[in-house]
């Protein structure tokens, strides 16, 4: 599908204007658009739990631009928990480096023993919607913005994970 059309479709989904109340996501380039649209439409908080912190998704030019734009508002907060990514990869990861330069974007690492038990990954936009991968080894995800109870539970669980995750210094 035309990516620009897809971008509009995700915007419609976020704003409750789409015919289907969900989007099934199966490719990295489309996942990047979803994340970018979430940042573009978020009001106060973005939460991201990502195993590999896949650069195709999270270091995409448009995503970085929206993260920067979102973070330019000091009342916003972006929390990113990563799991299985080496320091070497992190040192050249553009979003990790951007986070290092922005006070309200923080990256933490989930302890390995917890990471091994968490089989899913997800992103939560405010407490309004989510992109959820039920198997973190795959990119397949469901995106919804009409499921407040699940969204809130996911956000609250993220906050619990955040508390036990370790702050990291981005290697130079």
């Amino acid at each position, binding site marked *: 599908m035309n990516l620009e059309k897809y971008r509009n479709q995700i915007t419609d989904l976020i704003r409750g204007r*789409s015919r289907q109340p969900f989007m099934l996501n199966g490719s990295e380039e489309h996942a990047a658009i979803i994340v970018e649209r979430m940042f573009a439409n978020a009001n106060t908080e973005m939460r991201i739990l990502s195993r590999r912190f896949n650069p195709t998704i999270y270091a995409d030019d448009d995503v970085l631009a929206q993260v920067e734009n979102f973070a330019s508002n000091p009342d916003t907060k972006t929390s990113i928990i990563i799991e299985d990514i080496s320091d070497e990869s992190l040192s050249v990861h553009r979003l990790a480096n951007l986070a290092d330069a922005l006070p309200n974007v923080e990256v933490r690492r989930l302890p390995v023993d917890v990471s091994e038990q968490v089989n899913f990954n997800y992103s939560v936009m405010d407490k309004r919607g989510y992109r959820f991968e*039920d198997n973190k080894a795959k990119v397949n995800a469901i995106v919804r913005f009409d*499921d407040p109870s699940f969204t809130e539970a996911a956000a609250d669980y993220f906050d619990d994970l955040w*508390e036990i995750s370790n702050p990291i210094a981005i290697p130079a």
Partner: protein
Amino acid sequence: MSTIPALEPLLGVGFAVNLSYLYIPWFHYLQGIGKTAKQALSEGTDSKDILGEYSGEDSVNCVQYLSSLGTGTKGPDCKLFDKLWSYPLRIFTWRVDKMLSVISTIFIIYMLVIGVAHQIGLYQSTLVEISDNQKHWFLHLAAICIISPLIMSAIALWLRVRVKSYVLKTVGEYAVKEKTDAATAFGNKPDI
């Protein structure tokens, strides 16, 4: 006097309609049905591959099969036999509509040529002996040649509605499965 020249205006219309049916892209209904399936799929997924996780399941095969119609690539086999609309769909997948149109066009050209020949006094013996009983058959045949592309258009329109509804329903079912999988995975989260 030959009655064939009297049919010429009708045959002319039939010729134009059938030629349009064969060559104007708007009438390429197989592609249209495939495009409708793809558009419906894109309303709930980013690509047909998202359903690949469930490939092998008949409804997914059918969605992929329908999306491949008119693209020149062969989609997976699927069993749509429980759907009423799967039968008229074969009119398009087996190219029966195009064959009918080609036959109609050939018949019309033949009739037009004979009609002109009769008008200028040639081949008077060819088809000249049409009895009163036979006249209406030729008229009906000519009418069918004109109407058949219009009937095909109506069938194709109905099929597009059915195909869209089928794809949206199937994608919706898999979204429910994905949502259930997400809830299950989240339900199995470790306590912190």
